[in-house]
């Protein structure tokens, strides 16, 4: 017989999972949030999203070319990064600042560390924090949105975020449907929750991280005498817990690791929200926990089937 058989190692069957399909699912899960952003903040959000996505994809392509590595834009991960970054920005940000954020995310954090799977912090989050430190006023400028409560207005065009506003200004309903100030992707809680449910159903993420993160934050709020539901719905917590903390590369792969990591995120978030002079603690907490992931993983390695502890004195 002609010698044209494939001789490869087992297994000879593969599931139809693929990186591209997973990223596509994340994009689908972010659709409700993106649509909500356009409805709440108007056409400008669509432009912001388009600018970030296009810049990220372009930068990914160019940096891979320059580093003489194969192109990876087909896996859609740059689209996800661009989308997430856009959703973390205020709507009236200067597009040049947004593009600078993309540069940080894709080139510095992702590609300089070796590309997908190699970065040790979440690219979109790292970029957001760099922008926050470099352009604090532009990054914390929240425009008013139609229908939001009068009390939340600072002046004719600016409003306070739910966490900065006086208690009682925003109702739960305001937070659920996004009648409040904030970055374009964090305001509409319902859209975020929908996306989260989709990701869990599609088995893209395990529910451990978001659930434990939110539960820890709720418990901490109770301990601090805050309203747990309000704390969960307000600010970037849902966006962070569902879409940022669950980033594969920068979260633990072991189940117990996920629990430890999520508890850490929850505790840090509430500590920062309560004690720091910056009301928003989600990004910093996740970033800090990202850095601890290798250690958490090492400490939570599962016990392999049939593993017996070596008796004392027994030689290895």
């Amino acid at each position, binding site marked *: *017989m002609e*010698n*044209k*058989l*494939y*001789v*490869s*190692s*087992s*297994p*000879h*069957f*593969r*599931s139809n*999972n*693929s*990186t591209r*399909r*997973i990223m596509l699912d994340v994009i689908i899960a972010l659709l409700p949030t993106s649509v909500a952003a356009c409805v709440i903040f108007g056409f400008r959000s669509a432009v912001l999203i388009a600018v970030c996505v296009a810049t990220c994809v372009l930068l990914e392509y160019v940096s891979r070319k320059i580093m003489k590595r194969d192109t*990876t834009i087909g*896996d859609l*991960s740059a689209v996800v990064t661009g989308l997430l970054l856009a959703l973390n920005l205020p709507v009236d940000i200067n597009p040049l600042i947004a593009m600078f954020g993309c540069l940080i995310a894709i080139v510095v954090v992702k590609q300089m560390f070796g*590309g*997908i*799977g*190699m970065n040790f912090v979440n690219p979109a989050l790292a970029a957001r924090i760099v922008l926050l430190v470099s352009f604090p006023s532009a990054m914390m400028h929240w425009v008013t949105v139609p229908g939001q409560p009068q009390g939340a207005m600072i002046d004719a065009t600016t409003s306070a975020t739910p966490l900065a506003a006086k208690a009682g200004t925003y109702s739960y309903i305001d937070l659920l449907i996004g009648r409040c100030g904030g970055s374009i992707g964090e305001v509409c809680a319902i859209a975020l929750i929908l996306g989260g449910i989709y990701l869990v159903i599609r088995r893209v993420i*395990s529910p451990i991280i978001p659930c434990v993160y939110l539960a820890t934050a709720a418990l901490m709020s109770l301990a601090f005498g805050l309203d747990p539901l309000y704390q969960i719905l307000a600010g970037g917590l849902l966006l962070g817990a569902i879409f940022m903390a669950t980033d*594969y*590369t920068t979260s*633990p*792969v*072991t*189940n117990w690791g996920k629990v430890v990591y999520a508890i850490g995120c929850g505790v840090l978030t509430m500590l920062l929200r309560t004690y720091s002079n910056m009301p928003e603690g989600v990004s910093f907490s996740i970033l800090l926990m990202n850095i601890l992931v290798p250690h958490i993983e090492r400490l939570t*390695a*599962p*016990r*392999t*089937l*049939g*593993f*017996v502890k070596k008796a004392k004195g027994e030689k290895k």
Partner: protein
Amino acid sequence: MAELSFPKKPYPTRGGVHAPHNKNTAHKQSVEMPVPKTVVLPMTQHIGAPCAPIVKVGDTVDVGQCIAKSDAFVSAPIHASVSGTVKKIDKITMPGGNRVDAIFIESDGEQRVSPDVKPPEVNNLSDLISAVRESGLVGLGGAGFPTAVKLSIPPDKNVDTMIVNVAECEPYITSDHREALENGWDIISGIMTVKEFLDIHRVIIGIENNKPDAIKALREIADSSVDIGDEIRVLPLKATYPHGAEKILIKACTGREVPMGGLPSDAGCLVMNVASIAFISRYLKTGMPLVSRRLTVDGSAIKDPTNVIVPIGTPIKEVIEFVGGYQEEPKKILMGGPMMGVALPNDELYIMKQNNAILAFGEKEARLAEPSACIRCGKCVSACPMRLLPLELCNASDRRDEDALNRLNAMNCMECGCCSFTCPAKRHLVQTIREGKAFLIQKKREQDAQNKGGKK
């Protein structure tokens, strides 16, 4: 010691994947293949020492006549599967790439039975073990471990449970399923014999719940009056791969864990493949050694997938022709299942004792996607039934990092393929981990040699 009880439902196991079942041949009666013109019998059809031929070129042999054996403890003799003349004894290349001697027998078509073939006399355990050894039986489920060795349980091990493996979790393969349907009585009488001589009072028949007809058939016999003390029960298992792997099967049936590096007997269990146990009962009745077996021929390139009963040593090509040949150009031919089977370089090889399937696939199934970077999704971790960290093992193997491989318990990987199967980045995890294991074994050998040298 606590009274042994039968589990109502399987004990929980971790990981595993939902591989497509594709059990296309489950409802088809097996067919017997006519005697081929030539059979080729390699000297290693089992795990352990190779046999040495005891016939010469030109000798006339009969069916069931022993033609090769070895004095080593871990080995199994080989018998002529046809009557005819020994044409030549020559080296052939095995699927793994190593070259071994093989006996070529030209059949005279008469299928004369050798006068040596007569029912063995079995009065105690050691009779049984030597009879099984003479029969040339090896584990028919795929691994090919000599059954006589398995039955020789060291006296310091307390084996109280026998598990009969009908899980058959590999996609496509239905040869054990057909065995259960077609030879139910052989199975039960084989179980009765073995349990009596080994003094085992709990027999669990583990079978995946995607074979309701076989479960029903086996239950009917196991629950009938032959099973006097009600010591044999059928336990339906979840139909997830790899429930047929020994360690996973033991966990699911008894809740016990085989210690790392240990054997089933360390967990008080004896695991027997269903076809092996049925063979034992037939052998005790007829004395005909292992000269033929049932196997599944399937895959997208096969015209008419069927289970066939073939003489051992039949050329694979002829078996495929017998079931109607190829319907498209084969691009990959497997010996065994798609998850753990070996890809053959061509179809010029021969059916061996432990061979439970021949699968041939066309271009679409044969082609594997190119691997890309690991995205650390953790899917391989949740899929690993041994609860290892495949992605870390893979990295450690690439780095040839001995400490990390040991810390990650690389040797506990059973190469089941769940991790590679599920990986969205299509990484060659199993292949890389296999290299890492080989590296560890080599390191250990070097170390042992050094220690020996140092002592002198």
